[in-house]
C-alpha cells in the first residue's frame, strides 16, 4: 500500500492524543494523577486535544472530495470509518465539557466531571479501536486483517500517550517513578506486540495469483497488466519498499520507537534527569511514525496479485 503522509500523521498524532487523553483522564478521575496542579492537567488535556485535532485535520487532507466529508457519519451501521468519524466527533463535546470543568472546578473531580470524563475517555479509546478496525476489517490486506491491528493501534496510542504524559509531567518539574514505570510498561508491551505482529505477518496465507485467476493447477505468471504506465490501482496499492528497506525501517521502528525511549526511561528510573523524557518522546514519535509508514508499506493489497504478485 502506498503510505500516505496524511494518514501516517493522522494515525500517529491522534493515536498519541487519544492515548494521552485517556491516560490523563483515567488517572485524574481515579485520583491517581500526581499533577502539579490545574495548569498541568489543562496542558496535558489541551495537548491531547491538539494532537487529536491536528491528526483529524490531517486525515481530511487525504480525502479527494472533502466537501462531502460530513457525510462520513452516515453509515455507522456498517462502516468502521463511519464509526470512527462518529466516535471522533462525539468525543469532542464530552472532552470539551470535561476540560471546561477542569478549568472551572480545578483538579477536584466532581460527579459531572466523572461522567463526561468517563464518556470522553471511552470514546477516545473507542476511536482508536475503530481506527484500527478500519484496517483490520479489510480482507483484501492480510497484513491488516487481524485482531493484532486494533490491539496495536490501542497499545501504541496508549504507549505514545504515556510517554507524552511523563514528558509533559517532567516539563512541569514533576517526577513520578510510577508514571514512568507505566509508560515504560506500556511501551514494552506495545513493542512486544509489534514484534508479535511482525512475526505473524511472516506467515503467508490468503489468496494467491492462482486463486485470483482461478488457475490453481500450475504456476501462474503475469504476462501483461494491460497498461504500460501506472493506474490508480498501481499508485494506490503498488508500493513495494523492498525487503532490505523493510529490514532497515524495522530496525528504526524498534530502535527509535522502543529501545531508545525505554533506555532513556530506564535512565530516568535509575536516577537520571527527568529531562531525558523529552527526547524519549521525540524518539518514540519518530519510531512509531516509521512503524506507521511500515504498516502501510508492508501491507500488500490483494489486487496486486492481478498485477503479478504471487502472494500477498
Amino acid at each position: 500500500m502506498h503510505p500516505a503522509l496524511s494518514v501516517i500523521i493522522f494515525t500517529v498524532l491522534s493515536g498519541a492524543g487519544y492515548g494521552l487523553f485517556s491516560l490523563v483522564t483515567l488517572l485524574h478521575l481515579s485520583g491517581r494523577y500526581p499533577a502539579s496542579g490545574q495548569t498541568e492537567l489543562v496542558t496535558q488535556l489541551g495537548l491531547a486535544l491538539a494532537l487529536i485535532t491536528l491528526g483529524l485535520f490531517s486525515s481530511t487532507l487525504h480525502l479527494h472530495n472533502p466537501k462531502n466529508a460530513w457525510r462520513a457519519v452516515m453509515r455507522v451501521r456498517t462502516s468502521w470509518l463511519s464509526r470512527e468519524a462518529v466516535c471522533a466527533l462525539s468525543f469532542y463535546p464530552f472532552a470539551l465539557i470535561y476540560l471546561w470543568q477542569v478549568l472551572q472546578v480545578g483538579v477536584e473531580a466532581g460527579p459531572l466531571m466523572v461522567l463526561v470524563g468517563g464518556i470522553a475517555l471511552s470514546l477516545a479509546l473507542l476511536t482508536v479501536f475503530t481506527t484500527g478496525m478500519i484496517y483490520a476489517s479489510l480482507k483484501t490486506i492480510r497484513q491488516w486483517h487481524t485482531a493484532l491491528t486494533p490491539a496495536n493501534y490501542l497499545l501504541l496510542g496508549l504507549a505514545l500517550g504515556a510517554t507524552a504524559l511523563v514528558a509533559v509531567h517532567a516539563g512541569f518539574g514533576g517526577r513520578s517513578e510510577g508514571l514512568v514505570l507505566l509508560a515504560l510498561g506500556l511501551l514494552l508491551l506495545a513493542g512486544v506486540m509489534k514484534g508479535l505482529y511482525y512475526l505473524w505477518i511472516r506467515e503467508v496465507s490468503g489468496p494467491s495469483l492462482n486463486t485470483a485467476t482461478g488457475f490453481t493447477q500450475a504456476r501462474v505468471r503475469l504476462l501483461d497488466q494491460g497498461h504500460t504506465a501506472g493506474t490508480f490501482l498501481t499508485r494506490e496499492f503498488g508500493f513495494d519498499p523492498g525487503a532490505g528497506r523493510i529490514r532497515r525501517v524495522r530496525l528504526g521502528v524498534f530502535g527509535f520507537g522502543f529501545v531508545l525511549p525505554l533506555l532513556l526511561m530506564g535512565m530516568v528510573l535509575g536516577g537520571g534527569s527527568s529531562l531525558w523524557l523529552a527526547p524519549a518522546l521525540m524518539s518514540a514519535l519518530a519510531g512509531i511514525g516509521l512503524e506507521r509508514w511500515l504498516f502501510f508499506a508492508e501491507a500488500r493489497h490483494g489486487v496486486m496479485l492481478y498485477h503479478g504478485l504471487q502472494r500477498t
Partner: protein
Amino acid sequence: MTALPAFEDHDRQQSKYTTCYMCACRCGIKVTVENNQVRFIQGNRNHPVNKGVLCAKGNAGIMKQQSPARLRYPMRRKPGSERGSGDFEPISWDEALDQLTERLARIRATDPKKLAFFTGRDQMQALTGLWAAQFGTINWAAHGGFCSVNMAAAGLYTMGHAFWEFGDPDWERTKYFMLWGVAEDHASNPIKAGIDTLKRRGAKFVSINPVRTGYQAVADEWVPIRPGTDGLLALSMVHVLLRHDRFDWDYLVRYTNAPWLVVDTPGQKGHGLILRDRDGNPLAWDLELGDVVDASLPEIQPALFGDYTAPDGRPVRTVMSLLAERYLDDAYAPENIAPRCGVPAEQIERLALEMAHVAFKETIEIECEWTDAYGRTHDRFVGRPVSMHAMRGISAHSNGFQTCRAIHLLQILLGTIDVPGGHLSKPPYPRHIPPGIKPARDMAPNTPLKSPPLGFPTGPEDLVIDGEGRPLRLDKAYSWDAPMANHGLMHMVITNAVKGDPYPIDTLMLYMANMSWNSTMNTAQVMDMLREKGADGEYKIPFLVVSDAFHSEIVNFADLVLPDTTYLERHDTISMLDRPISEPHAAADAIRQPILEPDRDVRPWQEVLVELGGRLGFPAFTTRDGIRRYTSYQDFIVNFQREPGIGFLAGWRGAQGQNSLRGDPNPNQWQEYVDHQCFFVHHLEDSQKYYRFCNRDYLELARHAGWVGSVEPIILELYSETQQRFKLAGQGLYDGPMPKRPEHKARLVNHFDPLPIWYPPLEQGRIDLEAYPFHAITQRPMFMYHSWDSQNAWLRQICAQNFLYMNRGRAESMGIADHAWVWVASHHGRIRVQVKLMEGVAPDTVWTWNALGKQSGAWGLSQDADESRKGFLLNHLISELLPQRGDGLDNVTNSDPITGQAAWYDLRVSITPAKPGEVGAWPRFESIRPLPGMPDSPDQVRYRTHRRVNLRRSLWDVLTRGKGRS
C-alpha cells in the same frame, strides 16, 4: 427505489451508419452524434463483416477524432528550408493544387514514369490504380508488396483466391482449424467471432506460431514452430498423408491439375511443361482409352498416377506422380523435419492424421441440387471440414510464396477448398488462374496506360523489363529480381529512386504510408536518403508529396502536405472492384458517409485525385471537350463505369435501382446506400455456395457481375506451369526472355518450382547464423493499427511502450532478467531495448509489437512520450537489401525472390545485456518540430457529450439499509 432518471436525451442525438476505418477490416458502424460530437460508436448488427461487434480500435474512434495530430491545412516546406527540418508554411488548397497540377502536367507531358505514386494501407486501389494508369505511369503500387503479396500470389496461382482478404474458413461448419502465423489479420473481428463459433461446436483449433498470445492463447494446441520453417512442416504433413494414402482422390481428379501430364525431359526445352494438344488444352491419360485425352473434358477417366508416353514420343508423368514422388522422399519424413522446425515428429504425424480423420471420417454432406460447370447436376455438396488460415507469419518470410503454396497443397490434398467446412473464397473470388491481366509496360507522354500497372505474369515474356533485361519499373517489380511482384515493391521505392537505379524520378507521391518510419526497412538510412542531394544541390527525390491525415513521421519530409479528412468526415467506398467486404456466401460492398463536419481546412484525398484527374485532363475524368466529368468523388463513385454496367458500387444499379451487381448508373444509388445502412449484400443461392470454381450457376453470376471473364471451370493448380517457365528461363531452356546474369539465373533455378519447395529464408544464407542466434519478429497488437493509434489517448494507455519479449528460461540462462535493457544486433545495425520475459515464446525467437516506437515530436505526442523514449522499432535492424557479401546479390531486395514480398521476419539477431546505466531506447532521433498553427496537446482529456445524470441514492436508503441487498 425510485424509477431511474432519463440518462440520455435521445431527442438531441442522431444515429447514422457508416464504415469504420480504424483499420482495414471495414466493419459497419452506427455512430450516435450529440452536439456535433460522437456520443458512441457501436457495431452494426446487420453488417456482414462484424455483425454488431467492434474491436478496441473501432471503439476508440472518438479519440481519433479528438487527436491533436490531425493535420489542419495544406502546407509546403518553406522555400529555402531543408527537407526534414519540419519548417512548414500553411498554404491554400488552390495554391497547393495549382502547384501540383503544374508539376504533374509537365511530367505527364514529358516522361510520365518520373511520377511515382505509392499508397499504403489504402483500400481504394481501384481509384488510385486507375488514376496512375490514366496519368500514364507504371510506377504505381499499393502496400501489398510489403504486406502479403506472396500469399495473395500463391493463392491466386494455386486456387484462384487466397488467404489474406480473399477467403475465409467456413466458420459455421469447420471441425478442425489450423492457423498459421496470424496474430490479428485484416479480418480482425470475423476471426475472433469465427474462433468462438467453432470452439462452441467443439471443433479443434491448432495454432502454429512461435508465440502464444492473442488467438494462440485460446488454441487447443499450440505448435511453437521455428520461424521460417512452416513450408517444411506443411510438406512433411503432405508426406504423412501420402504415406498413409490419405488424400481426396475424386477431388484431385475432378477439380485440380493433379492428373495432367507433364513432359519429363530433363535438361531439354519444354521439360516440366504441361503436355498440351494443338489447341493448347492440357492432356491426361485416360484409363479406359489407354491414350491421352483432353484433360478438361468431363467424364474421362484420367489416371492420377503413372508414367506414359506422349503421342510425340516424349515421356510424360502425371502431376500426382511427380508430386507423390517428391514428397514421399525421406527428406520430408517427420523425423527428418522435426529438428529443423522444432516440432516433434510424433506431433507432425499426429496433426496430419487428425486432419485426415476429420476430412475423411467426419465428412459432411449438404443436400442441395447444384450444377457443375459441365452442366451435370449433383444432389449434394460433399464437405471435408478442415480449414486453415495463414498470414504474415508465412508471408513476411522470403520463402513465403512457396510455403503458402505448400499449405494450399495440403488443403487441396484433403479436398477442402471451397467445400462445406473448408476454406471458402469470397466474391469476387475465385478468379481464373491467374487472373487475365498483364502488367503494363509501355508508356507515352500524355497517354493513359493500356492496361493496369499491375497484373499477373504467366511467364518471362510478361516481365516489365527492357531488351537488356533491365527493370522498367522504379521498384523493379516484374524484373528478374522479383518476376511475380504482383503488388509492386513499395519498400524499395525510396532506395531505388535515391540511387537512380534503375533511373531517377521527379516526384514521389505517397498516400497513407509512413515510409520514413514503420513501413520502411532500414529506417534511419531511409530518413537520410530522403534528405540526400545530388552534386547539383537538388534533392535526389526532387519533390515529395504526402497525403496524410495526421502528423506522422513521413509528413516531416514532405515538400507538399495534403491533409486528408478522418474516416468520419468523408465519402468513400469499399468496392467490388477492389477488396470488398464480401463474405463467402454474399457479395457485399459498402460506403462511408460523412458523419461530422471537418473543423479544419482538409479534403479527402479521393476528392483531390478526382479533381487532379480533371485538371490534368485524364480521359476517364473529363468529357470529350476536356471538361471535368465528375463534380466530386461521390459523383465519380456513382457514375464511373469500368465496363458497361459495372461501377464502383454493385447495389441499386439501373436507372431505378432495380439491378444488382450490373446495371446502368443510378442517380439515387448513394442515397440507397445511406438508406440501407451504407452497405449492399447480394446473397448467393444455396446452389451457388460451394465448389464455385466448378459451379455453373455461380460462374454465370460471376461473369454477369464482371468478376470473371468466362464461365470456364477454374482448375486448381497443384502444379504451376508459370513457375516452371521461370525455372526453365533460369536454366537457359526457355523459348523467350532469359536472364543473363548468373545471380538471376540462380534465383530462378533455386526458388521457382512448379511444386512447392522449401528453402531457408534468404538472410540466413548470407550471415553467420551463430553470431545471430535469435529469430526476431513482430506481431500486431489487437488494440492498435500500425502507427495510427499512438495518437489515440485511450489506446496508448494500453501500450505506450513496447518490449522485446524473450523466453524466460533462455533469457535467464543468458543472465538477462525481466525488464533488463539489452542490445539487439543484426547484420545491419543495433538497437537498445527493454526485455520482458515470458513462457509462451519459442526459445530461439524474440518478438515485439509492431510500429509502437515513435519518433519524438510526431503524432501530437510530447517529446518525452514513452513511445519515443522507451519504445522502439525493429525496422532499424532490417535491411531493404540482402546482407552484403560482395556478390551479385548485394544490391538485391530483401524480399521473396518470386514475388518481391518484403522479408520482414527473416531477421536474425544477437542479444547482449546492456551495461549498467545504459537505459532507454536507442537510437533516438531529433525531435520533430511542431507544425505551424497546431494546437498544443492537452494535459488532460475529459471527454463527454453531455453532463452526467447521476443516479442518486436516497438519504433514507443510506440511513436504513444494512450491508448487502436488504
